[in-house]
Every structure is written in C-alpha cells, then in structure tokens.
C-alpha cells in the first residue's frame, strides 16, 4: 500500500528521529481500503510512510463480521487513537474499494476530532484489463 521511498546518500538504515523522543507528525493521510470482506485503515505521513494501521481482523472480528460497518468503525478508531495521541491534528482521507466500511470508517474519522482537509475516492478502475472471474453460482 505505502509506496517505497528511495534511499539517498548513505545506504545505512538511518533512523528518522532520535531514539528517545517519539516523532511528532502534525499532518498525515488516512487510507481506508474497504473490500467486501475486510476493512483496512492505514495512517501515514505526507510522504507515505506508515505511522499506524489497523484492520477489522486485528480488532478481533472473524468471518463475515469483518466486512460489517461496525468492524470498520472499530478499525478506524483503533488506527486513529494512536496518531491522535502522537499529536496529529489534520489529515486527508483516501478511500478505496466498494465495501460497506467506507461510510462507517469516514464517520469514525470525522468524529475522532482530526480535522479533514479533503476526502478523496481513489478506487482503482481498470481500462479494460484482464478478464474477470466467472459468475458465481449460488
């Protein structure tokens, strides 16, 4: 999900901040990926490095309950609580996918107190790509 950032200068694993102080990130991007069976919420900084993430599976939901709006709300709340404690105040929201968790996660983000710059739908849409699977016979 998060794009890799190319290393420049030395090839060492340079730590971004110092070890003793946790980094303060005032602005970020909240990515919501809502499929039919799960909802993943990832919070990154403006360069795309992941700060915290959560999903319906990590919140304890299993099976068909992972795709419910309540699971999406819980996942969004868990992901945002960490970054709210770290001091994030403003974010942009990117929503991807057709699942039920879109609106629930958006409402949870709105109610968490983080100010939103804009909300954007980034669902990928193939320009006539490969053939889809055959229809399911239920």
């Amino acid at each position, binding site marked *: 999900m998060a794009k890799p950032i190319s290393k420049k200068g030395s090839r060492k694993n340079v730590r971004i901040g110092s070890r003793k102080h946790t980094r303060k990130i005032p602005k970020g991007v909240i990515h919501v990926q809502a499929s039919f069976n799960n909802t993943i919420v990832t919070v990154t900084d403006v360069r795309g490095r992941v700060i915290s993430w959560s999903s319906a599976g990590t919140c304890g939901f299993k099976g068909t309950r992972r795709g419910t709006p309540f699971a999406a709300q819980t996942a969004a709340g868990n992901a945002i609580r960490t970054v709210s404690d770290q001091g994030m105040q403003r974010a942009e929201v990117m929503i991807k996918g*057709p699942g039920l968790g879109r609106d629930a996660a958006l409402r949870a983000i*709105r109610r968490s107190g983080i100010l939103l710059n804009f909300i954007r*739908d980034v669902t990928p849409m193939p320009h006539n790509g490969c053939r*889809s*699977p055959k229809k399911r016979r239920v």
Partner: protein
Amino acid sequence: MQPAATLTSLPRPPSSPSRQREREREREVIVVGEDEPEDRIINPFKKEVLKAGVLQECKRRRFSENKDDKIKRKARKASRRNQKRAWGQNKHDSEKKKKDVADDDIDDWELPHVGIPYT
C-alpha cells in the same frame, strides 16, 4: 480559512493518457472546511461518488459477464437514462404552464380610447 465543502480539482500531471477518465475522477474529491458538521461532509462525498459511478463499475467488474448479461445491463442503463429524460420533460412542461398562467394575467381586450380617423 478553508473554503466550505466545495469541489476543486487537485494538481495533476499535464500529459494524461485518458483525460476523460481523469476528468471524471476529479469529481470524487471533497474539500472540507474548518468546522463542518458531519452530514455536510459525508453526504456530498457520497453523492459525488454515486454520480461518478465508481461503485457500480466495481460491482460490475467483480465477475465477468457474457453477451446476454451485457445486453441486459445496457438495456437497464438506457431505461434509467430515459426515465431521467422523461422527468426532465415533465419539468419543462410545468415551466411552460407557469408561463401560460403568467400570460393570462394580461387583459388587453378593450379598444384604445382614441379618435378613429374614418368615422
């Protein structure tokens, strides 16, 4: 101060291969003001996404469709479009009726009170 929940287009690379698709996707961005209430953020965003047709396209591309399914889908889409057009015509007719009622207020049946030169 941020503008209050208006639609803008974000900066994009100038050479875009599918400009029509890009233009459609620009409608899926909602710029949020400072202290917007919750409904004024979520409802316009939902409306814009529905207008762009992203969710219907996602659900269509989940499974491949054969020839008959494609014919059915296009017929359904055309039916919906014609319903929308019919609603538009009804609106036009109602506007025409308003104009007719406005015209009826003018009453100019009385003859002008001037001397007719041939009497």
